[in-house]
């Protein structure tokens, strides 16, 4: 009986220590941040703009990107940036003035890309994936001509779009990621996590618009 009581006490202690809600690794930090984000969505009717702001900040805070933006499709069918984190107010203003039709967004002659999954496209500096009008959306346009020394470098002109696709694979919006703090392309895990975030947002947005 004494042994049983002792083991039970050890079990209680072990469980309390093992399952605290304080992150002990990068993976846990991400899980907890996303859990908290979804929990907030459950607690109140949150306007889409606030959801976008929160998610943009979350991605900027827990992943290694210098600039994170999000665009969604407006009721007129045009895609417009609604959030931008990590950029100056002037660059943010420039982002918010841009709009794309679906065909412009997917125009490979303007924006050549590499598909790395069904929702992720990478736009690399060598293909000049921007127009003259968009130069002002870069924080350091002077670096746009930068040469790549190693294939895993991430240059000023490189960016990644992760699409938020609805039920019929229609594009509801996208998350745009630019510049990493170590100037290297993000690792596989980072892309996988942000793809999960995009899938989750697709569900939230689809339900919001009654798709």
């Amino acid at each position, binding site marked *: 009986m004494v042994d049983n009581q002792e083991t039970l006490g050890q*079990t209680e202690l072990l469980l309390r220590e093992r399952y605290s809600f304080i992150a002990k690794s990068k*993976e846990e930090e991400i899980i907890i941040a996303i*859990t908290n984000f979804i929990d907030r969505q459950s607690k109140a009717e949150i306007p889409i703009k606030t959801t976008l702001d929160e998610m943009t900040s979350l991605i900027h805070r827990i992943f290694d990107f210098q600039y994170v933006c999000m665009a969604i499709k407006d009721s007129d069918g045009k895609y417009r940036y609604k959030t931008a984190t990590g950029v100056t107010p002037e660059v943010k203003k420039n982002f918010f003035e841009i709009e794309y039709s679906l065909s412009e967004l997917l125009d490979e002659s303007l924006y050549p890309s590499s598909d790395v999954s069904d929702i992720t496209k990478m736009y690399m500096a060598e293909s000049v994936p921007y127009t003259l009008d968009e130069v002002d959306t870069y924080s350091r346009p002077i670096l746009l001509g930068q040469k790549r020394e190693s294939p895993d470098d991430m240059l000023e002109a490189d960016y990644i779009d992760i699409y938020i696709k609805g*039920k019929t694979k229609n594009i509801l919006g996208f998350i745009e990621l630019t510049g990493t703090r170590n100037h290297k392309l993000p690792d596989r895990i980072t892309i*996988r996590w942000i793809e999960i975030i995009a899938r989750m947002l697709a569900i939230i947005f689809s339900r919001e618009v009654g798709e």
Partner: protein
Amino acid sequence: MSSGQKKKDLKQDIFLKSLYSPVSSSDEEKRLSEIDQFFTHSLRISDSKREELIDVGRLIHKISGFKEIAFGIRDEDGMYRYHEMMGFRKEAVDARKKIVYTPRDMQDGSSFKSIRIGKFSQIHLSEFKPFKPGEEETFNHPELLGKSRANPDDMIEGDYLDIFLFGKNREILGWIELSGTKDGKFPPREIFLYTELIASYVALLLIDFQKDSRKIHRMIM
């Protein structure tokens, strides 16, 4: 540069496709791949609560290794009942189907001693006898109830994890009950955190289904 001159660098393209190939190499990637597939499927089947819960159960089983998974949900009459159950013998399922919890039962934190963990969860230990008299049949192996725990991290018959599903103002929408791990041990902490993440999504699903059901109810009225 005119738009016609723009071309992607093929070497860089090959490098990127290889770097981000969809083949999962680490345990974390495998888990993410499962979650990714789940969300992709969830978007398509979002009209059926039953199908969604079965999918959630499968996901939890794949990620966590829990063998017994039950979903309890608040019904329209405000009472809580078990809905989907996986990994239980028929008698245990039948016994659970008979149980009805009141809102007071759900808020009751004193009748059954438990250990609060994580953000939404509590663990019930076999030694605390976390069931009412007559509910022994709700377990897969009632004959093993009361068996002593050999090691502190053993998960034995009678131990279970409840993850609560909260809505507005912390109203309880339901719960997910998990027991019986493959290796007979309490799961590692990151696995537990994944199950809480999945549970937070289930809460969101239930809120949506609630809204839909109210909409339908209003239309009928």
